[in-house]
């Protein structure tokens, strides 16, 4: 660019106003529905970890991810260093139990990030700008749900992967570990879908962010605490069926039960489901929780005026 004093034509005005190039029409490619949905999904997933957002919004999800990984790292360290000394021949904490052990962290993650992803568009009415674009309402809902579910899945599955790799390094049998690990991944996916569905629904109904965070936390923590208390009492009083049914009412105990039923995973609750009928109840309850949340979300968004 020439210096203003020497420029023969159109000297740059002070303040450096950019020359107006005039309007340029766009003649390039336009992407289809599926590609747009994928890009929307990725953006939502990244945003849930604060990527592409302010530094401040990275703090909480990254701290929670770190805290999720820390115990797994310690367990792996112990396993690798002291397997023979302690006579260990399997994971110190089973894969399927790990999400229950860390349920507080997972709940905080979901409670903080679901409103950031869901309530935000409703509160600022940015949803209108999405609805005014080709994507359908149902696609918007499904993609938002998918972003939150995958983000939660990554949080739950990351420490499991660490434990799996550590287990193999420590010389645990490959086939057995792989089977258990894959079962745990299915469990992590189910848990992520349950938690995300619930949290997304609460967030969509509670538009104010602070309220939504509090509501999700309360729903998840209270349900878990109450279920565990009931299971403890029913176990001690010998009415185990009561505790088994109660297990359906917290995503953590529910999905742990499903893993006991489907993969014969070691139980992490006082009263795991026993028998075929109870097994079916747990599996059906899981599917209903996810499907019901999605149906509720769809109904909620049908009422959103553009």
């Amino acid at each position, binding site marked *: 660019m020439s210096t203003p004093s020497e420029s023969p034509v159109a000297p740059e005005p002070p303040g450096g106003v950019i020359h107006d190039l005039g309007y340029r*029409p*766009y003649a390039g490619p*336009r992407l289809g529905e599926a590609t*747009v949905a994928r890009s*929307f999904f990725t953006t939502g997933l990244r945003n849930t970890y604060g990527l592409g957002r302010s530094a401040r919004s990275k703090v909480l999800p990254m701290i929670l991810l770190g805290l999720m990984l820390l115990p797994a790292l310690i367990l792996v360290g112990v396993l690798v260093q002291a397997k023979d000394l302690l006579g260990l021949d399997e994971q110190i904490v089973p894969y399927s139990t790990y999400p229950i052990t860390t349920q507080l962290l997972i709940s905080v993650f979901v409670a903080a990030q679901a409103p950031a992803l869901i309530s935000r568009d409703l509160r*600022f009415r940015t949803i*209108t700008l999405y609805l*005014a*674009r*080709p994507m359908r309402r149902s696609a918007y809902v499904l993609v938002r749900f998918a972003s939150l579910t995958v983000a939660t899945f990554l949080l739950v599955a990351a420490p499991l992967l660490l434990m799996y790799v550590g287990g193999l390094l420590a010389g645990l049998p490959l086939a057995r570990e792989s089977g258990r690990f894959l079962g745990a991944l299915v469990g992590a996916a189910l848990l992520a879908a349950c938690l995300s569905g619930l949290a997304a629904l609460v967030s969509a109904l509670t538009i104010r962010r602070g309220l939504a965070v509090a509501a999700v936390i309360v729903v998840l923590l209270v349900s878990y605490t109450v279920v565990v208390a009931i299971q403890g009492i029913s176990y001690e009083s010998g009415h185990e069926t009561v505790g088994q049914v109660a297990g359906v009412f917290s995503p953590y105990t529910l999905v742990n039960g499903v893993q006991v039923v489907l993969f014969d995973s070691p139980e992490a609750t006082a009263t795991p489901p026993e028998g075929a009928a109870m097994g079916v109840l747990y599996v059906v309850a899981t599917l209903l929780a996810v499907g019901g949340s999605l149906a509720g979300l769809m109904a909620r968004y049908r009422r959103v005026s553009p």
Partner: protein
Amino acid sequence: MAVIVTAGLTKAYPRVTALDHLDVTVGEGVTGLVGANGAGKSTLIKILLGLVPATSGTARVLGHDVAAEGARIRALVGYMPEHDCLPADVSASDLVVHLGQMSGLPYAAARERTSDVLRHVGLAEERYRPIGGYSTGMKQRVKLAQALVHDPRLVLLDEPTNGLDPSARDDMLGLVKRIGEEFGIAVLVTSHLLGELERVSDHVVILDTGRLLRSSATTDFLHATGSLLVEVQGRPDADRLLGQALVDAGLTARPAGGALIEVEVRDETTPDVVRDLTVDLGLGLVRMQERHHRIEDVFREGAAGSVHPV
């Protein structure tokens, strides 16, 4: 080519009929959609986007049926809502890039178009700051930019001047005019003020409680319904003299406070008649200006029978 065509378009809400058998055709260029609050402007726009179903009747946008091809229409149309719709914690640049992608632009193209479009609407360095700190005028520009980012064939701008101070309002209206004239994008822009739209529109459509009151080229419209404010000097009773002469010439004229005379515009020769009579009377013409009508005036005239729906 007609950009928007509606036929018998009706939207009945439980307690109010927002649109009542509306037959409207909108062409290229800038079309002003004028009506008092509750006239049905926003409802029409949402139906045109395929976001709200009509109760009966049909509407086609760029040749596509709103009931069956909403997604197709939304790919070709940009929409600026009348209400706030911007997240506070994102920068204008990031938001418009993202929304460009949501309209089907590849990432690189979305970035390039965002930078172009934000420049066109006049957002400079602030584009990288969170929108929460923007003034109303800047927010309106961001809303306009996101409606343009995908290079639509048509933009639907719902009350873009709402909440703006006079100078920001003029800037916005200037932009609207440029979109129609320089960018070559058809514009449907709403307002409850006729005066501001007649300055930028090629065509004006007036809605009154869901019914079409008038649809015509802005020039016809001005001549048919506008009036001139005239101030003359030269003699103490100059205004009375001219007023009488105008009435004698078959025009409608009345005192308009002070020494002003308001003359109803009959056709495009009216200003010349005023000028000639002033000269004939040996008076000096101090000023002659179009009086900007508020929509209510048009309704009053419409009710009195001097304006006929076309």
